């Protein structure tokens, strides 16, 4: 008998092999549907309100200066202005502060229609070279900004570094300069792991291959925070990058004066430049969208919940009535 059982091909019974595992078999009952909608609504609307209030508390000042800073003589042809090294590029803007800016105030430059996410641009860098002084010849992906006329490697090489933003801002209010702190604007990991502390700029912006800003050759890359910020390529053609921090409050209704060195050429490609001063809260900068989106989706969910409740009340329907089935309405031939 044992022998027989051993040789038997009878499948072994287990809940798994017989596909009888205990399982949760949820179906979308009216209860579930309404409960889900209400839950989502009840969750989203408060979050939305929270985010919206947070965003509302942020004070943001945006000032577009690219056009305004072109002298009237050149307004037809801003190129000739920006490319002429002999013209002073200083431009002063005065901005009214609508609401009190509480420190820390973040200073950004915003570029528009600037494709930092273009593949040619994104690729054009050498992480090895940035990190390691020995790898300064690793410029394979940096072309065409790889070597100077003497065929010496450019450090940091590549289009990204080469096109470094070079407008500068000086802010003063009530005749008093407000210092903009440039430390701590980059990610720590960049300074620690991506930009070497013993790598110094070399042959940078030389020999007619001048793009954007120059770098102080005595400061190692790991301390060139502007470069680090710039080299975290932006996701979209409209982007802000951190310029610095202001650690003093700016009172409401004050007028701030900004002295801008308008160097960066956005006129060529029809880009725009903006100066942004902004405070932050826990969700970041001013962004009504998140709050509004939360509130509206929450609202839609509540609306759906009500609709469903009404439907269930006014259009009760016998469950499981197969006469609704397509093949019962149109019998198979």
């Amino acid at each position: 008998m044992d022998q027989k059982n051993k040789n038997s091909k009878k499948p072994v019974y287990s809940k798994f092999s017989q596909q009888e595992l205990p399982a949760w078999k949820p179906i979308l009952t009216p209860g579930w549907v309404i409960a889900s909608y209400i839950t989502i609504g009840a969750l989203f609307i408060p979050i939305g309100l929270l985010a919206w209030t947070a965003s509302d508390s942020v004070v943001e000042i945006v000032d577009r200066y690219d056009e305004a800073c072109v002298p009237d003589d050149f307004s037809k042809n801003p190129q000739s202005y920006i490319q002429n090294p002999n013209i002073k590029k200083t431009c002063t803007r005065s901005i009214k502060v609508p609401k009190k800016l509480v420190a820390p105030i973040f200073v950004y430059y915003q570029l528009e229609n600037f494709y930092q996410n273009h593949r040619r641009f994104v690729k054009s860098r050498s992480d090895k070279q940035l990190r390691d002084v020995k790898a300064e010849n690793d410029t394979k992906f940096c072309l065409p900004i790889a070597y100077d006329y003497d065929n010496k490697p450019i450090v940091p090489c590549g289009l990204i570094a080469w096109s470094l933003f070079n407008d500068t801002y000086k802010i003063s209010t009530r005749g008093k300069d407000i210092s903009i702190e440039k430390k701590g604007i980059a990610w720590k990991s960049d300074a620690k792991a991506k930009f070497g502390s013993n790598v110094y700029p070399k042959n940078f912006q030389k020999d007619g291959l001048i793009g954007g800003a120059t770098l102080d050759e005595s400061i190692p890359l790991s301390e060139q925070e502007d470069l680090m910020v710039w080299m975290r390529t932006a996701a979209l053609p409209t982007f802000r990058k951190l310029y610095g921090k202001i650690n003093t409050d700016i009172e409401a209704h004050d007028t701030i004066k900004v002295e801008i060195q308008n160097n960066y050429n956005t006129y060529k490609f029809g880009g725009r430049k903006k100066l942004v001063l902004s405070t932050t809260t826990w969700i970041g900068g001013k962004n009504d969208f998140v709050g509004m989106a939360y509130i509206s989706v929450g609202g839609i969910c509540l609306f759906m919940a009500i609709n469903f409740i009404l439907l269930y009340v006014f259009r009760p329907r016998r469950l499981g009535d197969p006469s609704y089935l397509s093949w019962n309405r149109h019998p198979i031939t």
Partner: protein
Amino acid sequence: MGTGRTKRVHFSKIYSFQCGRRRYDDDGSQIGGPGFSRVVYCNETGGVSEGGQSYYADNYMRSTKYTPMSFFPKSLFEQFRRVANFFFLVTAILSFTELAPYSAVSAVLPLIVVIAASMVKEGIEDWQRKQQDHEVNNRKVKVHRGGGVFESRQWKKLKVGDIVKVEKDEFFPADLLLLSSSYEDAICYVETMNLDGETNLKLKQSLEATSTINDDSSFSNFKAAVKCEDPNASLYTFVGTMEFQGQQYPLSPQQLLLRGSKLRNTDYIYGAVIFTGHDTKVIQNSTEPPSKRSGIERRMDSVIYFMFFIMFLTAFLGSVYFGIVTKNDLDGDRQKRWYLAPDRSDIYFDPNRAPIAAIYHFLTDLLLYSYLIPISLYVSIEVVKVLQTIFINNDIHMYYEEADKPAHARTSNLTEELGQINTILSDKTGTLTCNSMEFIKCSIAGTAYGRGVTEVEKAMAKRMGSPLIVNGRDKYFDDDDNDPSLSVKGYNFEDERITNGYWIHEPHSDVIQKFFRLLAICHTAIPDVDEETGKVTYEAESPDEAAFVIAARELGFEFYKRTQTTVSFVELDPVSKKRVERTYELLNVLEFNSARKRMSVIVKDEDGKLLLLSKGADSVMFARLAKNGREFEENTKKHVNQYADAGLRTLILAYREVTDKEYEAFNEKFTEAKNSVSADRDDLIDEATAEIEKDLILLGATAVEDKLQKGVPECIDKLAQAGIKIWVLTGDKMETAINIGFSCSLLREGMKQITIILESPEIIAAEKEGDENVIAKISKESVKKQILAGKAQLSASTSEAFALIIDGKSLAYALRDSIKNTFLELAVGCASVICCRSSPKQKALVTRLVKEGTGKTTLAIGDGANDVGMLQEADIGIGISGVEGMQAVMSSDIAIAQFRFLERLLLVHGHWCYRRISSMICYFFYKNIVFGTTIFLYEAYASFSGQAAYNDWYLSLYNVFFTSLPAIALGVFDQDVSARFCLKFPLLYQEGVQNTLFRWRRIFGWMLNGLASSVIIFFLCIRALDPEAYNKNGKTAGLEVVGTTIYTCVVWVVNCQMALAVNYFTLIQHIFIWGGIILWYLFLLGYGAMPATISTTAYKVFVETLAPAPSYWFVTLFASIAALIPYFCYNAVQMRFFPAYHGMIQWIRHEGNCEDPEYVQMVRQRSIRTTTVGYTARSIARDNTLSHLNLERQPPK
């Protein structure tokens, strides 16, 4: 050897050797010529070589696809023959060039994973085949070692020229030349079922010259040289000569024993190996089984092509835009986007050569958008199907205890097709019935004997509502179940008037005696006496024949010995009341064939009287009765009709006395006919036999029951309720087929039967004339007319159920091109179709007609070799692993042990598999569209420069790691409703038949859902994160932050979408779905912790930038839920207001209504239409006619 010599019988004389006719015409002359160059030196050690003869293949059999050497190149080649895989190969190669938007390694890795998984699967399958080969190759056979000593040797070591000794019931290890056997005239019986599917035994005989060399020792000096044809595929020809003792002897197929056949009824044979291994005829003859692909997979290919089209289109549009923008970057000397340094650009971005750059960019875009094509879809489907077949094989409800046979899915690529069967084409014998014949009734001398009740009678009684059955405990109904120890296989006869020797008291005891004597003598069975118990068992060509001999034995006419010329049996002497032995001299056997429909023997009894004993079909026998032999004709006919009504197979028994003179004349003519070699030999034999088989005296009729298998009517009922059409294709005669039709409720009384036959007087007249053309023309006209008449009937009434019954002869005309479509229309309109008397080829043709004519999925089920064509032709072939050998099983896709398992196989496994596979494929496209669209949208924001939003490794691991496992879990485990409900609500099956889960609407619906989700995710993320600071430290989101956030949302949405779509959450689902999400975070942690040179943009992206920022989490939460809301709304509305059938059953289960009989009845009744067959429909049809008036009066609730 033992008993060997006791049975040395010269059977060669009693057979007319139909199968072994020599082909004198093409003999000898070609030997040594081209195609006939094989020379075999028998019994030479080392086989072939005398003077450096050519080397022949060894006897090693290889059925594997690959050898260890060829596995890699060949299976790789197989993999890349798939369009999608080839495409990914091309992208992988391109990814090593500058064109690639991602790193080569990350592109190659998923491809390697996918291809490796497929190859591992191939490898495992091939390994299993190798194991089988190994078993066959290591079987042992006795081979002559030299000096008359035989030793056991493995098959694979067999060489051409070896002398082997094969014993009873062993397979021949190679193609052998028969030298001698245990019979003196060196004949042997061979079962060729594996070759041609015929179950009857074939007779082979060696040359006279070698027939005396029949013991081991005589082979020590045996030497012979055989010259013969080269290996070829023809099973029925063999040309050669043997040089033996200085003489040339011609050889014929009569001496050739083919590998794959089996020695039967013969103790041993000696043979010389002629063809080995791959030279053997069976291997030369083997063809690849047709490879079948399911309809779903074909449609899936179309979807993939569609995706390819979308991909090429977007890539094209993208590169046109890219070309234009790139060209604009440089206008003479004026650069626009100077930061891209367009004046110093390489070819890929060169504004001066923008068209070429655009063309290159087109390739880049293709690489980027390749994520629209689910790379892992094929391999996932393969894995899922293998797992599904494991579930099928392990289903305890499809295990047949008695034969110890579980279900066995032989191919794994058709599982979902099981859920879409529109028409089942079923064989009858052995499939619907057991193919075990039981002698149950007989009519002797006009008196009916036998009180057994047949299945059909039971079913009919049930149908009539007979009180006998309602009480259900009648003794006849239980006897065989309660008392299995007493029952004799093949015998279910019960009548106290005859059993236990009481027959001698019956009025016509002399006729009864003759009747049973005839049963004991007129057959070709061979007795096998167990020497210890004295019990006799029989080996017969067919189960019918065995049933007769057994019945005779049980009733006291025990046939126990057959010699070359005699038949001996023990019987009760009515006078002395003692058992006496009788030996009749056997003079001739006039064999049965399908044209003659009868079989006779001529014997000389102990008084020297010559008797012709004959049994045959009623249609031929009644015509051959003598004027004075019709005494019982009327009663017998009546009984025969009753038996046929009860689903029994009947034979008429008759005899005549033959005078010596008559016999001599016959014998001369018969021998002459037998020995003739002309083409009309069969006709001559027929003529000779017809002359003596006449003027017979009727004895009576036998009735044998071909029992329905257990559970067949119930199974058919369920399948019919599921809306599956069932056609019966049988070789049996019309009456039997109709009987079976009734007994399994394929036919019922109310049904209009449309019968198409060719028996009008003019056709019969034409047949007598014998002019083939005239017969064909008239027959065709007649068939056409009948079909059209049937169609007219059909269109006249919409509410009635029709049954179509057509016989083989008419079928031959109905299947002609000109009318086959009309025929199909008629057949499709009928509730049941029964094709009787159909040949194997017709079965296959009908199958093809249904398959191609309706475009629906067909399933053929059968057990015999005659069903092979049908099984291979149908979309799915199911083999019944029953008694008729393995031929059907070997050519089937799935083998089950009993017809009734079909119910579970289709309604449960089929439905599940269909649902799983189709949902899984939809989901795969969905998830890839979600992913691919975000890539596309992002690229649009990057001025179509080919920049991906994601890190290389995010890209490559998406398909393989984060989203595949839940999809596979869905494909393997999901159940919309449990097995119990699948069976309870068979109409659910229609979801598969009508392909509701994989129609274009649903596929595009999922694609649209994917598109919507992806658009929602993308825009929410970029709007929420850019351009403002996204965290408290005033940091703005770079590419890595936005990309990773979008990716996180995609992973969440895709996995939660799976959670919404799944109906059946086991622990496995939870692990895979939530595990996929957790895996993503773990990956992000692990990858981000690697050195910055490896992780590049992902370096510490999670720990440093994302995780501390609340907005990341809020965006994730928001996008995940918002992207799922459209689907959720749709689903909620659909589930509530437009539920599909499975949804409805889920409601019922949920509400607990399934225990409410009235409610369930209401739901189920919907599945019965007037045209439904099966017993439920039958009882409803009856009730309806009874209570028609009542129903009309009652207002609907």
